[in-house]
């Protein structure tokens, strides 16, 4: 049974006006954000208009040449490439991670946390050593090639490393857990009865999935997409190692300005600010629209007494 939903009753009408208590409780968060998020962002913004210092650093001033540089086709081609890789990674993580999150979420309560830990433990080892382990596996004299040659599946070693495929593999490997975890907590609260009901009413498993399960886990999916796509835009190390340094992305360019020969902090800051403003704008607009529609971020279209 679906309840009538109106924007103001999205969380059932218990969204209140924050009184003094509401603002008081929120103040630590606001203070933290202002101190450690706003302040660095402002520093970055100021730097983006400054002049390049000789030893790195900046000479404060005002110039738009850094932003002009951002629009340069040399860097635009890399921005496009980064967005492409981030998108592919996110989609693959979603496809590969959803079933895992679903299984864990529907598992026995006793098993769930253990399964989650099992999923996360590999990522508590050093990123560098893990990635070099992949190099050992994928290189031309590596484990996979040796195995395939032994089994006579191939006659010559395959070139798996230092390719775009290797980069995608590295990216998916790095971000998959961050897709699984948010989706898991959405799946966990699924009422099994709903799925049963849908199936009883004649829906095939596929329909039950797409019409019932997916919409109900939409907030988890949205969170997973956010937590994979956004950070993957800033990636620099995985693609550097897996791609042989040939697949530069935005993250590498920005890094170069601060830690490479360029010593061009203002340009790096301009790139960073552009990324930030683009993300902030899109996120804020989507967020506002969602709040207007449903009163809460990420809330699914099917609403009502489903919790």
């Amino acid at each position, binding site marked *: 049974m679906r309840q009538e939903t109106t924007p103001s009753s999205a969380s059932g009408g218990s969204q209140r006006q924050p009184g003094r208590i509401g603002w008081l409780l929120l103040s630590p968060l606001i203070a933290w954000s202002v101190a450690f998020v706003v302040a660095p962002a402002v520093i970055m913004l100021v730097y983006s208009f400054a002049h*390049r*210092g*000789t*030893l*790195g*650093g900046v000479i404060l001033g005002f110039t738009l040449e850094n932003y002009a540089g951002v629009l*340069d086709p*040399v*860097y635009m*081609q*890399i921005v496009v*490439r980064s967005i492409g890789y981030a998108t592919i990674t996110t989609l693959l993580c979603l496809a590969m991670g959803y079933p895992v999150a679903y299984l864990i979420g529907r598992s026995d309560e006793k098993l769930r946390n253990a399964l989650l830990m099992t999923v996360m433990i590999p990522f508590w080892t050093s990123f560098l050593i893990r990635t*070099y382990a992949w*190099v050992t596996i994928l*290189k*031309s*004299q*590596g484990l996979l090639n040796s195995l395939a040659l032994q089994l006579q599946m191939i006659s010559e070693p395959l070139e798996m*490393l*230092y*390719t*775009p495929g290797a980069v995608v593999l590295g990216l998916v490997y790095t971000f998959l857990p961050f897709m699984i975890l948010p989706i898991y907590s959405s799946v966990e609260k699924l009422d099994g009865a709903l799925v049963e009901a849908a199936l009883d009413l004649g829906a095939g498993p596929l329909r039950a999935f797409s019409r019932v399960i997916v919409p109900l886990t939409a907030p988890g999916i949205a969170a997973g997409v956010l937590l994979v796509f956004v950070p993957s835009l800033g990636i620099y190390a995985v693609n*550097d190692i897996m*791609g*042989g*340094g*040939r*697949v*530069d992305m935005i993250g590498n*360019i920005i890094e*170069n*300005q*601060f*830690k*490479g*020969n*360029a*010593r*061009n902090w203002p*340009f790096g800051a301009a790139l960073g600010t552009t990324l930030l403003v683009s993300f902030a704008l899109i996120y804020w607009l989507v967020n506002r629209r969602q709040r207007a529609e449903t009163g809460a971020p990420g809330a699914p279209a099917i609403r009502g007494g489903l919790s």
Partner: protein
Amino acid sequence: MIRLVTRMLGSLALALGLAAPLVAVAAEELNLFAWSEYVPQSVLDGFTKETGIQVNYESYASNEEMLAKLMSGAANYDLIQPSEYVIEALVKENQLLPIDHAKLPNLKNIGKEYWDQPHDPELKYSVPYMQGTVGIVLNTKKVKDPVTGFGDMFQPKYKGRIVILDDSLEIVTWGLATQGIGPDGVTKESLVKVRPVLTTWLPLVKVYDSDSPKTPLLNGDVDLGVVWSGEAAILIKEQPGNFAYVLPKEGAHMFIDNLAIPKGAAHVEAAHKFINYILRPEVSRKISEEFPYTNPNLEARKLLTPEELANGASYPKGNPKLSTFRDIGPLAADVDKLVTDLKAKSGP
């Protein structure tokens, strides 16, 4: 709830307990900011034992990383370890304290050729720590044709078998060398000139790696490389007979890493003591043992083993054309852009 709080208090206590020994109450301290793994622990321990001065060793992986933290106004470092072209820039910007030669009786151990370099002709602000070159390393089992320079190396027959440093300034100077232009000739015009050269070179490269170019060489994924001499020396040590090091006939970069005292240093005395300690032949020799670069300390070289001196990458034979890098100022941004562009166009 209570369990949670108890656990948190427990970890807090544990943390403080663990942190205690780290809050060392030292008589005197020295804040050393150097390349990662470039100063052996045994050297630091020896220094502390003799002088009682505690050394706090922070490290970085590139000159620019060092500058980034230094220029952000961070901690007061007493010693930094910049390469020669960074010294030049630091001196220009008055960021270094002069070195008092009277406090460094061991300074005479440094070879004469290191005294007359353009970045610091009289060693007023820096003391050479280690020297090296950037050259060509070959897997002699795979590369049969003679390779004497960049021209021989960047040939279509080696496509996909090459690793080079991921350093835009290096790459550009190699290209310039084939045009007869040295590292002091980086100008807007010469960058235009070098572009077509690099456009033919870069598509041949399989891997860019400044951190560990020896990895793809040992893995057999590439057969030739333009790498730091230290990397080549390690390869030769590891698999003697398989690798050879060649200084390109068109010209090679000779880099000199130095110790210098930054402006905000608080322990200038201790810094001088440390430098003098490093200049002792027995101590300097220990550094060579760990890092097979070229030791500028001639007295220390006398203490090296025949194998170490025979390593063609550590102590190259012949009379190759060597030059140090100069500070190129704002052109660094153009250099970076050029290489970024060509990399992107030639990559997958």
